[in-house]
């Protein structure tokens, strides 16, 4: 019984500490968000030349020495990039590169924790860091489902229909969710599915066949395929 009371006291102490810490963290994050808000705003509106550097306040760059602050900024940049395209979006990417945030995302790829790896993949993809494509591509067949789906989405975001190459070798299933996700991403890129479509329709992976059928329907390529099949028969 004493044990239970001790646990109780311990739990209460833990809760109090947790609440205090969380409140402190929230205050700190709010402060950072305010600094970063104007930073991002200026980046969105910026109309400088290709080689120029985006304006960064001293206060912002000082805050950015902390990894937590950098993570916060990355999250804000990602939210922004999801919503904005054109020069605004491009500027956000430029800001990301200029501040060296790519290193933080890359470090996540090396982490043993699956959610951090997936996070890293997502960040690199949205911030158009194509130089890491080889590492991301290797993850498109990863055993962990989330890493795999993020990697697939990343490749498709960066390379459109060309990126679907991973379907050739994919042994793991493509869930409906993932299929919808990929179709959505593809609908934003120009181009059409390559001749590979026929191969995918005959894949040994039933979910790949399913996805190929959806692609065919989406791009109204049924006629073309029927013709091909007739010709080979």
């Amino acid at each position, binding site marked *: 019984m004493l044990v*239970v009371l001790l646990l*109780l006291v311990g739990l209460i102490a833990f809760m109090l500490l*947790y*609440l205090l810490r969380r409140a402190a963290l929230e205050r700190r994050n709010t402060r950072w968000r305010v600094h970063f808000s104007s930073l991002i705003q200026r980046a969105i509106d910026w109309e400088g030349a290709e080689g120029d550097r985006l304006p960064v306040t001293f206060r912002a760059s000082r805050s950015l020495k902390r990894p937590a602050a950098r993570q916060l900024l990355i999250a804000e940049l990602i939210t922004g990039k999801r919503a904005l395209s054109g020069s605004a979006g491009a500027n956000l990417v430029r800001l990301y590169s200029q501040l060296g945030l790519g290193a933080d995302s890359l470090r996540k790829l090396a982490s043993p924790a699956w959610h951090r790896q997936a996070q890293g993949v997502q960040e690199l993809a949205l911030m158009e860091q194509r130089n890491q494509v080889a590492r991301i591509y290797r993850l498109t067949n990863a055993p962990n489902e989330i890493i795999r789906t993020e990697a697939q989405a990343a490749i498709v975001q960066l390379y459109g229909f060309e990126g679907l190459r991973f379907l050739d070798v994919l042994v793991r*299933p493509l869930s*409906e*969710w993932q299929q*919808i996700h990929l179709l*959505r991403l593809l609908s934003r890129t120009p181009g059409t599915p390559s001749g590979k479509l026929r191969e995918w329709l005959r894949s040994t992976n039933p979910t790949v066949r399913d996805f190929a059928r959806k692609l065919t329907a989406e791009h109204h390529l049924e006629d073309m395929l029927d013709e091909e099949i007739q010709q080979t028969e």
Partner: protein
Amino acid sequence: MTGLWAYSITLLSSYLAIGIFAILEMRRYWRLISFTDYSLVAGSPQAPGMSILAPAYNEGATIVENVRSLLSLHYRNLELIVINDGSKDNSLQQLIDHYQLERTDWPVTGSLATKPIRGIYKSANPVFHRLLVVDKENGGKADALNVGINVASQPYIVCIDVDCIIEQDALLKMAKPFLDSTGKRVIASGGVVRIANGCEIRNGRLVKVKLPNDFLARAQTLEYFRAFLLGRMAWSRLDALLLISGAFGAFDKEIVIACGGYNHATVGEDMELVVRMRRYMEERRLPYTVTYIPDPLCWTEAPSSYKILGRQRNRWTRGTIETLRMHRIMCFNPRYGRLGLLSFPYWLFFELLAPLVEFTGVLATLVVAALGGLNVPMFLALLGFIVSFGILFSFFAILMEVMTYNQYKNTKDILRLALTAILEPVLFHPFVVWSAIRGNIDLLRKKKGWGEMTRKGFAAPEPKPNIYANP
């Protein structure tokens, strides 16, 4: 005495296990959803179609508002079916007037046996194209739901009480497990019911979450934390979730029909259906799973008086007993895997029998004390142990809530919850145990007067507080 000790130790260790599994599962879930963009499903034509089934009986005061709020949920392939279970008030007329309903020839594709349908209505106004109203002869909630299943045109059904407030994203979150599955068929997806008492509600929407001022409602809030954030999360991790709460769940319609729909013969028709669906899949050795979403998706008004609470718990007890008895073949039966070896015995011994054990324990203690043979320090130690463990578990549940959804952000609210946890063993728990005992007694009694007595019990609903009245 030793028997009681043994039972308590086993019960408490199982709670400990639940605590651990719940944390692990919650952590995994939290990380998972950080990668989910639900807006993807919201607009997608590929998202699984859902039919919301909302049986209504004499809900005239609020039905128009309820329907309006349900019609505005963010989901593309959504069909809202309101089933008027032969209401004696003007519910149907209000709906017809407000939503410009016209009689229509709607195909009834399901084959479940039900009371006759008097008419099916659709709106002439394209803004309300998702709404379908079915008027039928009174037959009780299970029957009304079965009518809804027969009429539903979408592959998944969501069964709710019409006055539940459903979060905007609820269907998106419920749909995701159906889309994620590869290999295993997801037959049901359960959501969490939260307590709406004390919350600000405007136009049928939850505007602000607040802790109920009423002790009874707060005690239930705490209870729901324990049940949903800890209990169900833990069982979900073991993929052995046996019972899904009545108020909210999405089901694969095909399997529901194959199983025969809702069963009239029990007051716990919602629980019983899930057990039957699981049995169906287990017996046919079909790979399947039942998923669980811990996010607050559905808000409902909890009983705020001891009388109504008593009736509710009485009904829950009877429903659980009836369900477990109907499917008693599963108990300790390895053919049903984890369900038979873990879940079923757990529900039987620790959920169903617990109140009985407690009650007999109390009686036995009183008898022994009267006879002068009571080992007082031993008894106090046992009592103290159990009570403080209970409080510990509640505090843990509060911590879980604070660390995850954190719906009650005020420190004052957290303190009030803690206080409620301390008062609970005195002011709440004994009452719940007593209601459960009454449930057992009532069930035994009704067994003799089967048929007539039970039917009356279904048709008369409990008076529900009106959440649309100003707080």
